[in-house]
């Protein structure tokens, strides 16, 4: 359907047509443009405030998320920034298996004699405490030495800080203890890590992996119980801290 002559004529005439608008038309357009500009200027601070509010809310959510993650980590016993208390693997010789159930030699910074110790779970107020109590055992042939009791909780930095090291009533002579240990370790077949406690023909060695031991103990613990323990330890730690600060001030 090609345009005919009439249509071409219409197109030509209407295309060239110009109708002068009323003089008020520009004034109206001017007023409308002014209003639009004002609106645009008003919008800018609103947008700025909205963006600031959005940033604040985003930061708030990020903070809440981070805190939640932290608390869940503590509940699960996973603490990224903390050190994990774990006993290094050491050979333990058990001389009297009837008396000593399991032996764990804890590596300590001080040159304390490595003595076979018993690991027991201590119950207090019907609550199982996740503590590894290291008790010293009397060794025949050695001078009576009593090492300080150490209560070590697993996987909690707070516990590590507030490890209750209760000094025993009998003081330990470290030199004598070392001498006795040196004597015992003169046997060339044994390494320094292994402690020869007493000479005897019927020696029974039990290798205890501290990590597996701790893991097995950990498995028995209840999650909520762990949280309670952590809280109680935190509370105790704060009490001790306050007491120390008060004492120092005095």
């Amino acid at each position, binding site marked *: *359907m090609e345009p005919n002559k009439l249509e071409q004529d219409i*197109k030509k005439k*209407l295309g060239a047509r110009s*109708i*002068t*608008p009323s003089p008020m038309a520009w004034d109206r*357009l*001017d007023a*409308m*443009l002014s209003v639009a500009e004002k609106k645009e200027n008003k919008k800018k601070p609103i947008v700025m405030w909205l963006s600031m509010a959005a940033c604040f809310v985003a930061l708030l959510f990020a903070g809440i998320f981070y805190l939640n993650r932290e608390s869940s980590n503590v509940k699960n016993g996973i603490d990224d920034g903390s050190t994990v208390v774990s006993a290094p693997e050491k050979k333990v010789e058990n001389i009297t298996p009837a008396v000593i159930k399991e032996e764990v030699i804890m590596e300590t910074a001080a040159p304390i004699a490595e003595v076979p110790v018993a690991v027991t779970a201590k119950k207090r107020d019907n609550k199982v405490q996740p503590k590894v109590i290291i008790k010293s055992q009397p060794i025949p042939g050695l001078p009576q030495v009593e090492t300080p009791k150490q209560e070590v909780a697993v996987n909690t930095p707070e516990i590590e800080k507030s490890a209750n090291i209760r000094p025993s009533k009998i003081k330990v002579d470290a030199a004598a203890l070392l001498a006795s240990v040196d004597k015992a370790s003169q046997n060339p077949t044994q390494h320094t890590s292994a402690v020869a406690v007493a000479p005897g023909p019927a020696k029974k060695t039990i290798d205890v992996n501290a990590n597996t031991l701790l893991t097995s103990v950990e498995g028995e613990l209840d999650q909520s119980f762990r949280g309670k323990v952590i809280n109680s330890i935190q509370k105790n730690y704060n009490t001790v801290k306050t007491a120390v600060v008060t004492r120092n001030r005095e």
Partner: protein
Amino acid sequence: MKVIDLHSDEKNLIKEAAANNRHAQQRLYSKHSGKMLGVCRQYIKDLHLAEDVMITAFMKVFANLKNFEHKGSFEGWIRRIMVNECISYLRVQKKVGFLEDEYYKEESFNNIESNLSVDDIQNLIDSLPEGYKMVFNLYCIEGYKHQEIAKMLDISEGTSKSQLCHARKMLQEQVNKLKNYENGTE
């Protein structure tokens, strides 16, 4: 040289108007408002309403001046905005109705040569139903294709063709009537 100067002058004017320079905006308005009111008048019978629509369309022109890429003619760009504004106005007013009639005849109309004035032509177009008028304006005066018209008016291509066919038929009848009236045969 003069053409280049004019072109660069308009370019600068557009740039200034885009930066909300009211003087530049007024100059652009003064330059194009006459023709654009004529465009609006093709679609809207009432001149005052056509002026209102033109002002609204000019608002859109100034708001979107930053988007004008200087690829085509500025007048053509404004004209397009005017046409779209007229269509949307008529749609909002629900003055347009399209019969989904896909009947059209591919026939050539009699080549009538007319010495009709612009006002007569406008009166003839005004006498058409809104649907016919719109399709006729878009196809014959603005030069849109049926596919584009169908998209703009949200109708089928066949409907657009049939509307044009009916519009042409009506126009020719009226022109013939007018001619016969002038010749005194009717």
